[in-house]
């Protein structure tokens, strides 16, 4: 039992840091800090992604990932699944409907 805990404590998070890294830049339909947090959180919990940073100025997100575990298409799907466009991939309709009002595209006009 002790060993299981030790393994949980040490080994598993270690795996997430290992492996080759690649980065990709994706244009999104994010608008505000909340959008940023939603997308980054979802990516953080997605397989093979070690880091992501969304820049609200140009709405692009820089994603660092392990190409052995995931690919650009999967990353784009993960963004779309939260309710945002990712380059050519269109936001998932259901998730978009659930977004807070300020995160919807129409809000962009009034937000700034």
């Amino acid at each position, binding site marked *: *039992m002790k060993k*299981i*805990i030790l393994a949980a404590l040490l080994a*598993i998070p270690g795996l997430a840091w290992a492996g080759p890294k690649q*980065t990709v830049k994706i244009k999104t339909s994010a608008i505000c*800090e*909340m959008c940023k947090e939603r997308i980054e959180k979802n990516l953080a919990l997605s397989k093979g992604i070690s880091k992501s940073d969304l*820049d609200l100025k140009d709405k692009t997100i820089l994603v660092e990932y392990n190409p052995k575990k995931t690919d650009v298409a999967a990353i784009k799907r993960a963004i779309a699944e939260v309710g945002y466009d990712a380059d050519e991939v269109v936001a998932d309709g259901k998730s978009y409907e659930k977004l*807070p009002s300020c995160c919807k595209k129409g809000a962009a006009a009034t937000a700034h």
Partner: protein
Amino acid sequence: MLIQRILYWGLFFGLILEISPAVYGQVVQGRVMSLDAQGNMEDILGASVYFKPIKKGTLTDTKGAFSLDVQGKTGWMIFSATGFKNDSVFVDKNQFLHVHLQPSNKELTEVRVVATPGNMDNVSTLHTEILTMKTLAKAACCNLSESFETNASVSVSFADAVTGAKQIQLLGLSGTYVQTNMENIPSIRGLKTTYGLNYLPGTWIKSIDLAKGQSSVVNGYESITGGINVELAKPDTSEKYFLNVYGNSQGRFEINQQGAHRFNQKLSTGLFTHYSKQAARLDGNGDGFMDLPIFDLYNVLNRWKYSTDRWMLQWGASYLYENRLAGQNNFDAENSNRFLIYGFGSKTSRFETFAKIARLFPDKPYQGLGLILNSAQHQNDSYFAFKNYLGREQSVYANLIYQSIFDNTNHSWKAGASFLYDSYQERYIDSTFARTEIVPGAFFEYTWTVPNQLTMVVGNRVDWHNQLGLQWVPRWHLKWDAAEDLILRLSAGKGWRRVNPLAENMGFLANGRRLVLLGDLNPMEKAWNFGATLTKNFQIGTRKGSLVIDAFRTEFEKQWMVDMENGGELRMYSSPGVSFANSWQVEMNYSPWKRLEIKAAYRYQDVQADYLTVQGTLSRLPKAYLNKDRVLVNIAYATPYEKWKYDLTWQWNGSRRIPNGSLAHVHDGVSPSLTAPAFSTVYAQVTRQFKKWEMYVGAENLFNFTQSNPIMSAKDPFSRGFDATMVWGPIVGRMIYTGMRYKIQ
């Protein structure tokens, strides 16, 4: 790799180019919006924006927008607006700030952006700690009694080595002096006192407010050392479906399911169910007795909420059934002879209904009218070997509260009336105890506020008790914001309660001692509590921390004593002399790095009371089973977006006095005391979050420390020397658990 670098640098320069004109102007712009639990947002007009380094501020316009010249400085920018929780953001580069303030009602979960570590409530006049879901998830198992494992103020222990009932302790005194409310309805009282803490599943809890010292007169007269208010998950803000499954190495299994449904904007309902089972008969210390009772517990709650601008109605019903069995390993409830094999059994059923009706005045937010109604039926059938106990309670409670202001919101008041009807039928062996309590009462509480400086609350209530007569309860609280990050609080007040000699001390029946009830047929307890606390919030660089120092004294005018000082006897009587409890605590919370939080606390308690010797004289003793010193350290770390969460708690409990349990011992006032040794316990937990669910693995009592002989004369349970109540340390050893939580939003 080269391409990446170029990308990074390109981005970097891009940023510089874009923000440089703003840096030149040194003006920070942003927008302040409200964010409620449903995710709705609106611009906040007139929110205050204050930049600490230059001591200047501004207000937001109709679109929630603001701009402020920061004069090139970096530091904390503080946002506040009436009806919302304060928030702050560290401004070090010139970015557009999006700030979302949460409404200040307590139905919400987490303080989102930047919160002071340690969860001290900086706004409340009472010295209050808020245990959020995040805090509660640190110790994933299982019910309210275990919610305080990472808390420095509250200790939790087993009442005895047989029944498995847990008790809490605050300011050196037992949990019976803490008024435990569920959504402002007095909850753990009467016959529910015995196992009440075990009966509230942890996953149902949204947050816990823990107020040390006297609490408000609005919720009644029974609080003496503090108030705990538990908020449960609300149907309109809960997940559609929530599932929690838990299992541990000692053979306990638990499943919690919660469902919520919103019919429309106004009406919503929630259905919460709980089932838990201790299946394995565990005897780690080999004394022939189960270390934990085996049990089945079913618990279900259905609640409804209807809310409009003018009305908020909440109502619901809950039912619980529990069957507990303990005693010798080979005891069988159906077939064993209870005169030959020691067995303990307890069957409890409880049915409760509640309604809360609030009338709101949208154009006068300071005004409100609320009515709280609650009814409960409680049944317990127990036996300790051949000694049977039977308890029945029926209770009805109502509390009407009106709040308004004198002239302006700096002078607000609450007034109201309460009514309690409580009927008890109890039988123990061949004695019957029956009583009906009828307690009408009225209260008035005035709050004087000097904005950002001083708050003073003066409360008075008068209750008439059909057995105990007229009782007056004055309470006084003061909060002084001495500096922006220094808060001083003072409190003084009185509380009283009718004692339930058996239900509150049920665990003490698990021994061969002869029960001796002396004197008073209608025992009551009455005490004053005085407190002073200091909260200092500090920053080292951009990292926040807090230092909390508190000191409390409880002085009993009357106390119901449970005296185990004489071998073979359990004596209960009204305190013949002095009884007091002093306690002070230092707690520091600091977050040295992002997502790393450290809590360290030291607590000292000095609790003494006069006991009766066999000669009838008084002898003052430190309270038995209570350690003077306690240290608690908690370290919590999370990876970005809480993908992984680690939590480690270490508790050190100092040595404590225990009564001399030998049968021949007679308490004559000069006999030397016995001491139980100091011990440590360690708790650890790891949580991994996935997109829709999370999983945790943890351990309790990692160093496997146990009291070696929690039951005296365990081999001879029908002798007078048999005693399962001399418990000072953990009864069960290391326990490993795992569980998962699954959510559908």
